[in-house]
């Protein structure tokens, strides 16, 4: 089925494009697949029809939005990818795994299709705290903690969510959370082109958030943060990623670290930080994560050559967690962990569940696991929040897993 291009070209204001190629030039996947967003825009302008089915490379886009950030003419190239994916979604012609993820979200509120009632299993060992937070949400709280799908269900990320809840508790914040009532934020849903489902989620979630009336919201994931902040229209709610909240509290002197990430007397851990696209490039949050790392005792922060606005995408966004793309061999995450290793870092710190999973996997594949450990900033915060906690790092990043 061919798409009539005229309407979409006009809706997306593709006529503003001057074909400079800055989008494709900066596209992290353009080097490894046939995806050429500049060329797609051109075809949208000069051809009357497009055979969207023939462009399977559309599923290679990670929605990192480097193209959007760099376009001199304010064209939003990634939005074309999303719209074209939308055409495929609408007619059901999507990779099977994308269909499964979308169905999981529709039925169970999460892309893995795990049971909705299991959504609070992340809080294992902290049941009391969870109940308190759920109660707080019911009664109306100042701060709403949105856990997110991956932190809720993925065993590797669950400790990050626990660390966050523990930290909120230690700080005595009036924090609430939704437990099994929480549903997927829809950030990746929109980017996979399923606009209808996204709008449904945004409406239902938005209503739920408003009913709680929290003035502040905080998320584990930059992806949830992005859509809540920029696409939900949550007027009057201050949506934050956890790195913003904690960096603010550190600056005010309210969050301090009694412990360290290394045992007393040992050299500091060399840590490098990978900017997640949804936090950095898309929301210009570059300094807060670094401010947290700088404040954690026992951390020596070093930078990779490509950092901040030039950070390399890990390839986990835009639905790519559920679709392999057309080039399995050359993963950007492989390149990224090698860049991290080059700095001499022992820890590659991240602030995003997707980055944590893709980069940790890459460390294993590249055989770097002896020298490089991938950790969420929250895990380091958690470690340094316990007195004499440094030794734990070698064994396990989270004490409560020992139980």
């Amino acid at each position: 089925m061919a798409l009539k291009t005229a309407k979409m070209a006009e809706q997306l204001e593709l006529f503003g494009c001057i074909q400079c190629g800055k989008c494709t030039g900066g596209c992290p996947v353009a080097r490894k697949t046939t995806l050429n967003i500049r060329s797609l825009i051109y075809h949208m302008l000069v051809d009357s029809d497009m055979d969207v089915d023939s462009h399977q490379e559309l599923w290679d886009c990670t929605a990192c939005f480097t193209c959007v950030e760099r376009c001199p003419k304010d064209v939003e190239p990634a939005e074309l990818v999303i719209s074209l994916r939308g055409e495929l979604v609408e007619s059901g012609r999507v990779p099977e795994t994308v269909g499964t993820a979308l169905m999981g979200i529709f039925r169970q509120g999460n892309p893995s299709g795990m049971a909705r009632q299991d959504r609070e299993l992340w809080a294992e060992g902290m049941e009391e705290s969870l109940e308190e937070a759920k109660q707080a949400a019911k009664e109306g709280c100042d701060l709403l903690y949105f856990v997110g799908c991956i932190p809720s269900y993925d065993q590797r990320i669950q400790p990050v969510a626990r660390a966050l809840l523990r930290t909120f508790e230690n700080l005595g914040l009036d924090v609430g959370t939704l437990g099994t009532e929480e549903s997927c934020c829809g950030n990746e849903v929109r980017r996979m082109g399923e606009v209808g489902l996204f709008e449904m989620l945004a409406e239902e979630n938005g209503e739920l958030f408003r009913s709680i009336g929290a003035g502040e919201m905080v998320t584990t994931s930059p992806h949830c943060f992005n859509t809540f902040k920029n696409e939900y229209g949550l007027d009057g709610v201050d949506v934050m990623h956890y790195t913003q909240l904690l960096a603010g509290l550190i600056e005010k002197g309210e969050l301090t670290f009694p412990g360290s990430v290394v045992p007393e007397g040992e050299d500091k851990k060399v840590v490098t930080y990978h900017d997640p696209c949804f936090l950095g490039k898309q929301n210009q949050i570059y300094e807060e994560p670094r401010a947290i790392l700088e404040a954690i005792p026992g951390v020596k922060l070093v930078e990779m050559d490509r950092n901040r606005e030039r950070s390399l995408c890990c390839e986990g966004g835009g639905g790519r967690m559920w679709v392999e793309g057309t080039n399995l061999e050359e993963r950007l995450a492989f390149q990224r962990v090698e860049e991290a290793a080059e700095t001499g870092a022992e820890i590659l710190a991240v602030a995003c569940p997707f980055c944590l999973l893709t980069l940790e996997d890459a460390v294993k594949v590249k055989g770097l696991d002896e020298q490089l450990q991938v950790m969420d900033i929250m895990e380091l915060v958690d470690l340094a929040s316990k007195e004499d906690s440094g030794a734990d790092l070698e064994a396990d990043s989270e004490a409560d897993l020992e139980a």
Partner: protein
Amino acid sequence: MERQKPAALIVGAGIAGIQAALDIANAGFPVYLVEREPSVGGRMAQLDKTFPTLDCSSCILTPKMVDVGQHPNIELMTYSEVESVEKDGDVFHVRVRKKPRYVDIDVCKGCGDCAEACRMKGRITSDFDEGITNRSAIYVPFPQAVPLKYTIDPDACLYLTRGVCGRTFKCKDACPAGAIDFEQEAEFVDVDVRAIIVATGFDLIDPETKPEYAYGVYPKVMTGIEFERLSDASGPTKGEILVDGEKPQDVVFVKCVGSRDPHTGVPYCSRVCCMYTAKHAHLVREKVPDANITVFYMDVRAFGKGYEEFYDRVRHERVTYRRGEPSEIYRKGDKLVVLAEDTTLGEPVEVEADLVVLATAIVPRTDMTDVAELLGMERSPDGFFQEADAKLRPVDTNVENIFVAGCCQSPKDIPDTVSEAKAAASSALRVLVRAREAVPA
């Protein structure tokens, strides 16, 4: 200077202000030429060669600088700023503030012994050399400065910033003429003029507004104006193209850095970058004959007399023009890598570089608001001064008898700037002649 005749004030002594001043002065009318910096010359003094003829910039500019310095009808007020302007009928009452140089310029011979002796020698960034070299706290911005008189930088001088400079003043001890005077204070000069020409010039966009090009991260990434200093035979490297002390083998030029980019707040074309980049490519070829030279471009705008011919010539000098705006620069070992899509190939490319030159956008000067307020002038949406009519009254402004010339009105090259300066001078002369005829001699 014949003070009884109606006079003109010119604000800014770059090539526009210099040319306008000479035209008016040569017609027999007095001109007050006010320049904020210690020397006249402006941006053109910083340039190496000029396109498309490749004339040495300072060789064609310096004689004009000397002329304004010596002209009997020009009162040159350097290191000075217009403090206030009051319009009273056809007359502007203008107050000029002469900033203290802490050097008596009637006495200073320009020998430079003071700068040699200065305790801060080699420790103060030279703005003229775009930070490539360092100077003393007492300085002339460049050897051809007019006037060739020394100035003490109040932000750098130990005595002026901390109240103490060792036991004695090094510069004062060294000066054979006794020109140094730390007691000097700002002086105010009141003049009445009938016409004003505003020629305050431009700034260049901060390249760090495009963080993807990593300016400030890698010393191998520089701006076009820095390249001018590097290429200038009287510049810090005596005209040798040296990056980290070595001749670059792979040189990449990036055009439209900030320009044509509403995203950056610079929607317009800066109009000079296409041609100066072609000139830079030519200069690299001349100085590093075996270099690989790549120019990345979105469009090539070679619209002036002799420009397309120059662009043709440069390509024949083995300069590769590749269509595509680079998206990012990063490091790979000792080399930089420029990421772009070669849109003609339709493929992403990675081009290695030892030197990347960014053609940064021309932007309105940061103090445009103050100047506009001082003179009651309007600005166009792009921030530059608003001409009365873009086509038919290009150098008039909303204020009668205030005219504009050069890059403070919009980006333009030297030929256009000089044309505008001459137009503004002619417009001002019309006012002065009329005023002279109205006033009995």
